[in-house]
């Protein structure tokens, strides 16, 4: 009799514990899944150059990561330092040419997204789009990582036309 009570008590105690933990979210306590970079990411209404630069970088990373078949987050860490970039290209078997092509495609997507969100006037977007498709890899990475300083100095980035175009930035 006591033996039966002991066994039943053990079953009840075990079920109560597991049930309580599952009800408290125990089955979904894991890292949040990152978004597929190929899916469009909505732009919030940017108010300042800093906000535009932030979203521009994120869009560019999304576009490049989509091209390379990696997550935006993996690519962001890879572009942080030359050493990280070297490790990344070695691990995924990507040469500089392929990386440059992907980042340029990402920058084009960022310009498109910015234009669509009304953050960049077509007068800026068109030459910027043309420019980013031809810039060298290091400059492309710099633009992704530090869009604010580049967008804040459109004149130096786009040449003499930039002086005129800069006033169209918010």
């Amino acid at each position, binding site marked *: 009799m006591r033996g039966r009570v*002991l066994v039943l008590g053990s079953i009840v105690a075990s079920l109560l*514990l597991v049930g309580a933990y599952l009800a408290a979210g125990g089955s979904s*306590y894991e*890292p949040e899944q*990152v978004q597929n970079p190929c899916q469009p990411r909505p732009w919030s209404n940017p108010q300042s150059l800093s906000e535009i630069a*932030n979203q521009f*970088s994120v869009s560019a990373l999304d576009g490049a990561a989509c091209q390379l078949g990696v997550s935006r987050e993996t690519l962001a860490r*890879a572009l942080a330092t030359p050493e990280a970039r070297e490790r990344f290209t070695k691990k995924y078997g990507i040469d500089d040419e392929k990386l440059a092509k992907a980042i340029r495609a990402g920058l084009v997507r960022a310009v498109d997204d910015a234009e669509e969100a009304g953050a960049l006037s077509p007068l800026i977007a068109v030459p910027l789009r043309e420019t980013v498709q031809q810039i060298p890899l290091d400059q492309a990475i710099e633009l992704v*990582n530090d869009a604010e300083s580049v967008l804040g100095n459109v004149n130096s980035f786009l040449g003499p036309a930039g002086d005129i175009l800069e006033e169209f930035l918010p």
Partner: protein
Amino acid sequence: MGVVLADSSIVVLALPDIYRELDTSISGVTWVLVSFNLVMALAAVPAALLARRTGPGRAAAVGLAIFAGAGLACGLADELTTLIAARCVQALGGALAVTAALELLPATVGSERRAATVWAAAGATGAALGPAVGGLLTELVSWQSIFLIQVPIALAAAVPILSVAKHEMATGVIEPELRRTGRPHLWANLALAMISAAIAAALFLLVLLLIEGWRLSPIVAALVVTVMPLAAVAGGKLADLVPEARPRAAAGAILVSGGLAGLAFLPKATIVLTLPPQILVGVGLSLVLSALTETALGGRAPQAIHGGWTISARHAGVVIGLLALTPIFTAEIDQQRHDAIDAGTAVILDSPINPLLKLDLAEKVSDRLEEERGKVPTIGPAFEPLPEDSAERSEVEQLQSELQDQLDRGATHAFSTSFILAALLGLIALFPIGLSREVEL
């Protein structure tokens, strides 16, 4: 005897330190435990036979001397292979000492049945108390100290046995009654193997989760897992109320499995939530280990041989548990680490902080990952020094907290599958427990 039986659980708390200091992998450091348990499993029955041939007094004294000598070698080892080799020798000495001790116990405690109970209690207490002792020694002294402290204890235990050994040598009396050994209790030993696999996983995985996953110090982790032995003491009182071994064993196996399932579904990375599952495991291990050991030894002679079989079953179970679960949670840690870092990087990228600061953080996080490749990284240093601007500082602190939350989620989730599998092992033990009805104490 308690020191030998507690060895595996004592060493568990030192594994994270050994892992870092000897610069090995989780799979590599697991062999510090696996090697000892494997040799114990293989050597227990031959050691028991040897103890009966040479005399239990002499066998126990020699076994303890080997155990002490190899413990010294473990404490002085500066590379993993030396440590593992010394652990193998230590297990040989341990097997000889423990099985011989069971042969000596009836004369000390009065009867074979009482000896079996004391022996089972020593095993359960050792397994439960070991982690706390190991954690304290690792934190306060060093991982080497957990091996070195075994040396004087084993030698001190050998002193009173020497008089028995001298008597055996002088009289030539080895064993008053060389009885034929009966067959080992298959179902009880099989259940012991499975439940030992589950319990080993509970201790090993929980300690790794606390120290490597949640970054607690060994001493704090030791305090946390002390809940298990405390619960085991309560379980011992509960066991006294139920004389039948089979329901005690079944209830114990269910509680161990329930506790492990609770650890698999932790809803948050906080110490408090590990306590209820540990209580179930502690009470369960006390009920099931004593019941199964008593069943395996009950009515069987000689005790040393059947004790050898239970030692063999328990240590084989530990080996099976560790070898089966280590690759699973090692792969899971790697996957969850990547997911957590990706989730944390997403938090940084989507935050409103200055893009240059973002870049700086991404760079430092990347460096941390490279430095702690294959491990769950400590993310704090990536955020230092904090910005001087108070608004920016607050944003960065918020980011650090969110990133740490993702790492905690990853580290905790990495152990879920292994805890579930360990719980299943505990439940599977119910089958042999159910079949062991022919022997009731």
